Structures are given as C-alpha cells and as structure tokens.
C-alpha cells in the first residue's frame, strides 16, 4: 500500500501498476491481483478476459501511447494512469487533456512515473486528479505544488474558460 495525492488530499492507495518484465508478453502476465493498472498492450490483448473478471481495472498509457487506442473502452476503466518517463517529457499533459476534453473521461486520471511537485499545477490544469508522487519525495510537501498559482490565462480542464472570457465579468 502506498500514498497518493487524490482530489488534493493524501490518501492510502491500493492500486497496483503492473509492468511487463523483460521477456514477458501481454499474454503471460499474471492478472490475479485485486486492483490492477495494466499496460495498454495487456488491455488490448486481453480485453474480454479482463472485463469478465468483474474487478475494477485501470490501464496506463505511456508517453507514446495515445488515448485514441482506448477511446471506445473508457467505460471499463475505474482509473487511467499516464506515465511520465521523465518529468521533462510533456506528452502526458496532452494525453490527459484529450482524455477529458475530447473523450469526456470522467474517472480518475493518475500521473505515474517521474511525478514531482513542481509539475503538479500543470497536471491538475490538464485534467489529472491523482498523483503518485515519486517515492523518494515528500508527498506532504508536494501538495503545495497544486496551488502554485491562483489564476491562469488559458482555458484548460480545471477552468474551461480562458481568463479573457472571465476578465470583464
């Protein structure tokens, strides 16, 4: 069990991110765990089997994996995680926005991987609502990263109207 930030609070979390080990194929992955976040390849290869498990399931997307691949499957996911291979890799911001704004995904979107305090504000704006802060970092302190700014110019998931449409109001 580990801690994540969820809805701007620190909570105990049971989800387990599953990764394919070297030489392992999607077909051979052990799916007996309770609450798994499986790689996209596993979901695509064993979708029917996973659905019949009738346990909550999550999927995780890597930076080079688009939400297009799961656009028709969103109802099945209790959670979608987006991996940041490095905190400087910004593809995950676009992926989260697309999930929310284009594909209208309403479930939990979790940032996993190299997730650091100083990117949380932008993640929140792009539609993430949970954050598996990198384990060597102080998650309590990281909370402050969600509140770096009190206003923003652009429209995004957290504020669908750009400042210029609200400024005169």
């Amino acid at each position, binding site marked *: 069990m580990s801690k994540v930030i969820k809805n701007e609070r620190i909570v105990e979390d049971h989800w387990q991110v599953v990764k394919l080990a070297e030489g392992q194929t999607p077909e051979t992955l052990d799916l007996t765990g309770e609450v798994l976040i499986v790689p996209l390849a596993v979901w695509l290869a064993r979708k029917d089997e996973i659905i019949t498990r009738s346990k909550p399931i999550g999927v995780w997307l890597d930076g080079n994996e688009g939400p297009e691949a799961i656009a028709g499957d969103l109802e099945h996911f209790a959670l979608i995680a987006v991996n940041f291979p490095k905190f400087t*890799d910004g593809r995950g911001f676009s992926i989260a926005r697309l999930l929310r704004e284009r594909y209208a995904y309403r479930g939990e979107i979790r940032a996993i991987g190299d997730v650091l305090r*100083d990117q949380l504000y932008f993640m929140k704006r792009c539609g993430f609502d949970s954050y598996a802060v990198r384990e060597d970092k102080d998650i309590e302190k990281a909370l402050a990263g969600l509140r*770096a700014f009190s206003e923003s110019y652009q429209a995004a998931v957290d504020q669908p109207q750009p400042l210029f449409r609200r400024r005169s109001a």
Partner: protein
Amino acid sequence: MYRYDRIDQQMIDERVAQYRDQIARNLAGEISDDELRPLRLQNGLYIQRHGPMLRIAIPYGALAAAQLRKLAEISRRYDRSIGHFTTRQNMQLNWPKFEETPEILGELATVEMHAVQTSGNCVRNITTDPFAGVAPDELTDPRPYCEVLRQWSTFHPEFAFLPRKFKIAVTAATDDRAVIRAHDVGLEIVRNADGEIGARVFAGGGMGRTPVIGKVVREFLPRRHLLSYLDALLRVYNRYGRRDNIYKARIKILVNALGIEEFARQVEAEWEHLEDGPTTLTDAEFDRIARHFAPPAYESLPGDDTAFAAAVASDKAFAAWVKRCVHPHKVPGYAAITLSLKAPGAAPGDITDQQMEVVADLADRYSFGELRVTHEQNVVLADVRRRDLFDLWQIARANRLATANIGLLTDMICCPGGDLCSLANARSVPIADAINQKFDDLDYVHDIGDLSVNISGCMNSCGHHHVANIGILGVDKNGEEWYQITVGGQQGNATAIGKVIGPSFYAEEVPPVIEALIDVYVEQRSASERFIDTFERIGLEPFKQRAYAGHEKHKPARSAAEQVSAEAQVQHV
C-alpha cells in the same frame, strides 16, 4: 504599451514566490540540480562558464523608460553594471549570483517584468518588428497580437515541457523585419480577399544546426482562431516531435519528416476539435489589449523641419547618422531612430548602466517614454519629432550610442560567445572586435553599404549567422577555435540560408577573409547593387576563390574532428 492589471501582476508575483521557494529547496537539498534545471531555465537562469547568467524577458522588445532604469539599477546592484541585448529582444545579465536571482526577479516584478520562459523547452519570448506601430509599410500594429500570444503562452499548462524550445515571431508589415521565416512559427498578419484580418502561418523554420526556412502551413487564419489553431499545432508537436535526440527535436525536423502537407493535415485534424471552442479570441479581448497600444499624443507637424534640414546640410557626421539611423514614420514630422550598440570596441548588444539611464532619459524626453530592443541588438526610439533629432543625436553621440552604422558591416549581430557562454565552441566578441578594427574607416563602411555580418560562437546560432550576408560560425577542432564562413544568407521576405564557402579559418584569418569577400563585391558591383544582389547575380564561386587565394594550406576538407566536436555540444546547462 501593455500595462498589467491586478491579475497579470498577481501571476508574476506568484511566479517569483514559486521560484524563490524552488531555489530555497535546491539549497536545502530537497530538489536536485537536475530537477531544478528546467525550472530555473524557465525563469531565465543558466549556469555558465563563469557562473550564472540570467536572461530577462522583454516581451516583443518593448520597454518603458522606468523599466530600463530598473534594469540599470539591477545591473549595478546585482551584476557588473552592464547588460546584453539578445536576438530574442531580451536582456542577459552575465554576472548575477545564484542566491540573489530570486531578489532580482522580485525587483523586476515591481516594474511588470520577469524572466518567464526565456529558456527551456517551452514557448519563448514572442518577437516582432521594432518599428511596430510606426512603420509606414505596416498593415496594422503587430503588438496586440504579440501580447495576446504572450498571455496565451505564459504558463501554458500543456506546453511547458515540449520536445524543444519554441520560438514565435510576428510581422504585420510589407517588409518582414522579424525574421518570421526562421522561426518555429512565424505569423504574418494579412487581410484576405474579403478584407478580413488574420495571419498567414509559417511553421518549421529555424536556425541552429539544421537551418530551415519556414513553410506556409496555413495561408489564412482568421484572427479569432489564432490561439486555438496554435493550441492544435503545438499539440501535434508536443505529441509527435522527437524526444530521443536533442538535435532532432525542433519542430522543423517533424515538419520535414512529415512533409508540410501532412503536417498541415494533422494540425487541421486536431484543430477541428478545438475550432470555435472557448479559446476563440473575442473582439472585446483583442480591443482591450489593442487599446494599450493606442498611438501616443502626436503633434500636428509639417513633414519637413527646416532646422533639421539645415543641420543635415551643414553637419556631415549628423547627416551620416541620419542616413543610417533615422527611419521613416507614418506620422508627418516624426521619425523612428536606432541607437547603435555597435560602437567600435564595444561588445555588440552590450549596454552599460549609464547608457541605460541615458536611453531612458532620451525616451522620456523625446519618445513618449518608451523604447524597443531590436533583434539586431540595438535600441529603437520609435516616436521622435524630426525637429528634435539633432539634439537627440548630440546626447546619443556623447554616450557612444550614435555610431552611424545601422545595417552596415559593423552592425554585427554577435552572441556572447566563448568568453562567457558554456555552449560556445569559440569566442565571437573578439572576432567582431577584429573586424571592427579592420574596417575602421566609416566612409568606406558607408561606401560598402547594406551588408549583414553575423557571428555565432556555436551551432546554436544565437548570432543568426545563417541569415547573414556573411556569416561567421565558431567551431572547435581538437580544442582549437576555428571559424566557418557562409555567404549569401539574408533575412526579410527573401530569407535565405548562407552557403558555406569551404574549410574553416583561424581567428586571425577572419578579418582578411571578410575583406577579400568585400573586395569581390566592390569590384563586381553595379551602381545600385547591394552585396547580396551582387552575390545573387555572380554566385558563390568568385567569393570562394578569393577567400582561399593564398590559403591553400586550409583547402583540405573539414576534418572529422570538427564534425565530432560540433555533435558533442550540450544545449542546456
């Protein structure tokens, strides 16, 4: 110029607080140097050869006199009383202390300034025509577009960690003075056949190690769609631009790999989802911003001023300055003037704290309290009464700000180079200095006429050498400084990348080689030809032959070592 409202100010104040906290956490060991790097870069802070360098944002080059005075004060208090203007119209301080940078940003915030996104893999400072708002050949003032883009790009949540840096330039004039074709995105403000205003969008241009001229990705984009379309374009780049190789990460590589048609198709497909969404720019917002750029209270003046004409007729030095440094203005009786920061012996683009004070005073006294920084690293006062030009010139001259060399050989664009920059392969300022010494006869420099000579200390091309008539690029061969020469580049509507004339030269060979190239031009030119015209007529070969006459020992092809060391450069420090 644009003035902050409460919200703009609050965001910049919060940015200072965020940065102050990040630096404190780094000093406390909570955030590693590697983790801090992109954060400090997005606040303009590099770690350089001799210590930190802070690049301060000057949005589209526009400064108020009070802001320049603040820069002078900061340079005195936190640096060595000198600033350096860059080709992105920003200012660099080369000797700040790491621990004091939060204080500097705090000081800047008191005059509505910052160092946001002056580095890092994000949308950088938007640049434009230094004669915006006053140029007789402009369709409209490009500055409101720049400010709209500044706000859209500032802390954009989706595009703070792009594959690589992203530079946007805007022009609204017949003659492009913002090098828009050498930018990741270039916007040319135009009217379509129906009289509607919008932008012709260029994408995929850039300098660096792979210079590319931008291509038209959309012939006409109505103004209201500017931001949503750029969101779509940046999203395509953010998702599909290469991240595996820093040298292939700019958008130009993606555009070239896909082809402009396919790239345009992908952007359009993305934009279909965003078109007419909330990011659609409202007329009310555009007008709100445009009001900040309303023309100043011009007087009704005759087009010609008799005292001015008399001074030109009687004072040869003044006449030379007027010829090179005074530019047409759309309002009768006014002129825009360029204060040259290319005096002999001065590092191009450098300005002392005292000169900053003088320029601020000149702006207050003669140009409605505002000034602009040019991408050629000079300063423009845009709204000067012609009758004041002689007085202004005398003050400028007394402060080494009136060298009559704008657009001439000695008006060199030059990066700080190996003296300061840790990316550089070679020094650049001493080369500029040596060329200045070689061409110390101003009459001859005037006779040579329009000629751009630009110097970059490495392939990153901060000195814009690719688009110079004569470009000089510092390269490192086995730890030695060498210089590669290109000929035939130019900026503007006919932007072209210069061609390499051959193997590189030693530093001391550069001035005589430049002289040889100019000799070819002087011998071959027809009466009205500029250097670039002669080059286009006679081609590279005559220049090449003259440059290497007597230099056969350097004829061997570029050595492998030269290639290797160019590859070994680090981009971010």
